[in-house]
């Protein structure tokens, strides 16, 4: 479903990420493991087309991302990728339901408030629809961020350290939620995490080596 080949990504002259070959089939659930600073977030950003690798090829759903530019890349991302960022980043000016509607609007998809409500209901958080993000607990916000990531039925669902700041019960619930939603929308799931609690819940693991800092 996606393939990263010959990736060598650098900031200036500093190498930040190197992946020879990593590919996944559609519907697979992956853990992207590795210590802090090993480039997990960067790898997710490459998959989402938020940045282009210094060298190498990123292909998602049969599309070579290097062939997409500007607004076309943004449009592809909005429709094909759901991202749950580490710090969630719900839009504070909008309530929960409008955060979901914003995702559909920005991806150029028709506004379907009932469908967004049904999704919230399926995730057991329809009572929060009219809450503002600052009124949510960490666990609630996490669920809303997942809901926003899957509302457009992406082919690729990415989550960056989703269990950080969560207790064991919530960490497990969040992981199960991500897997359930990925199955529900038929998305390939990649969870980037250095959290050992995640490993038993995800069958496939791709591990990034610790970055060697050259003196």
């Amino acid at each position, binding site marked *: 479903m996606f393939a990263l080949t010959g990736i060598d990504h650098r900031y200036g002259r500093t190498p930040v990420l190197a992946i020879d070959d990593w590919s996944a089939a559609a519907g697979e659930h992956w853990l992207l493991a590795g210590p802090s600073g090993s480039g997990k977030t*960067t790898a997710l950003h490459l998959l989402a087309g938020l940045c282009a690798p210094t060298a190498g090829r990123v292909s998602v759903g049969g599309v070579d991302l290097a062939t997409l530019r500007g*607004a076309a890349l943004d449009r592809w*991302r909005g429709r094909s990728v759901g991202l749950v960022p580490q710090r969630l*980043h719900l*839009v504070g000016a909008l309530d929960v339901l409008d955060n979901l509607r*914003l995702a559909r609007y920005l991806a150029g998809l028709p506004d379907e408030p009932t469908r967004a409500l049904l999704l919230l209901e399926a995730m057991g958080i329809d009572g929060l629809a009219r809450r503002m993000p600052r009124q949510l607990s960490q666990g609630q916000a996490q669920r809303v961020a997942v809901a926003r990531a899957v509302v457009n039925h992406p082919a690729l669902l990415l989550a960056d350290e989703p269990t950080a700041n969560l207790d064991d019960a919530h960490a497990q619930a969040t992981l199960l939620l991500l897997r359930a939603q990925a199955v529900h929308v038929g998305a390939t799931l990649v969870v980037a995490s250095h959290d050992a609690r995640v490993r038993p819940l995800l069958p496939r693991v791709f591990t990034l080596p610790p970055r060697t800092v050259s003196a």
Partner: protein
Amino acid sequence: MNLASLALAYARRRPLATFLNVLLLAVGVATITLVILVSSELEGRMQREAAGIDLVVGAKGSPLQIVLAGVYHADVPPGNIPLAAVEELARDPRVREVIPMAMGDSFRGFRIVGTVPAFVAHYAARLHAGGLWAAPLEAVLGSEAAQRTGLAVGGSFAGSHGLAEGGGEHGDRAYRVVGVLAPTGTVIDRLVLTGMDSVWAVHDAHGHAEPHDEDADAAPPAREVTLALVKYRSPVAAASLPRAINSRTVLQAAAPAYESARLFSVFGVGTEVVRGFALLLVAASGLGLFVALTQALDERRLDLAIMRTLGASRGRIVGVLLLESAGLVALALVCGLALAHGVAATLGDWLPAAAPLAAGAARWRAEEGWVVLLALAVGIIAAALPAWRAYRLDVAATLAES
């Protein structure tokens, strides 16, 4: 959910800052617009009232005073001139028409002008009721004079000595109202008109009543008028006639066009100062808008980044910021223009001198288009830098920072 509702959601999140920004810009817009309304009304009125009058003649004195007294009825005339001199001027081939005026009395602040029917014709005034004066002590009221004094055809009043209120009354010689004029929007609305012989009759009687007046018992006094309005037969007369009048006769000639231009150059400075101040106000509010938008951008960098991950293009992100700025500017424009026109319409209720403003308050001036452009330019300039920074936003780096 669209860009407009998103911009609105952001504006509602900071209601005080939004309100203050709109208020500041609206006050600047209102000030500029009000200056435009006042000066265009003033200029238009001065031009309207001087229209068709090429020259005003009066006693030797200040030409500005003669114009103010003869055209705008806003100053006392310099003194009287012999009727004979005016009649001689009327015979000059360069002169098409001379309209003499005899002044000196007033009624409740409205000047009583003794003149000829040509005066009414000059201001194109129609009779609203009654007819023109035909006999001594018959008077015709301008529309405003009639409205404010409550006098109608058939009423009578006594003039008071002097052009301001509070002079001694000519109680023994009462005028009878025989006509009321329809409104014209010119100075004639505020005048009380009568024949010249009425003015002479009142003042002869007045003279007789005062024993110390030495000429009173002599032969009928030489008839005098106060001022006369002169129309040229052809514009060529402007080259020679005023100088001829000033050098060879007892009369002083003054051209309204020239004198009012001179007057404008004096108090036009005041208008320029106010206009400059208003521009400064708009510039300051533009700066306020810039600060607000820059601050909003800093606060919203993460929101903008997440919107990019949700599929928004750079153009759309810039669109949100521009739309927000445009919305504030549009709101400020509507409020500012409404405020200026509202003030113009109601200012007359507190300041009687500003009453004429109300008549033109509902009309839009071409210059207001410039105010709209100015405000839009301020909005665009204020949003330009924040929009550029939003366009350049590095999404991956912004999401990665913690």
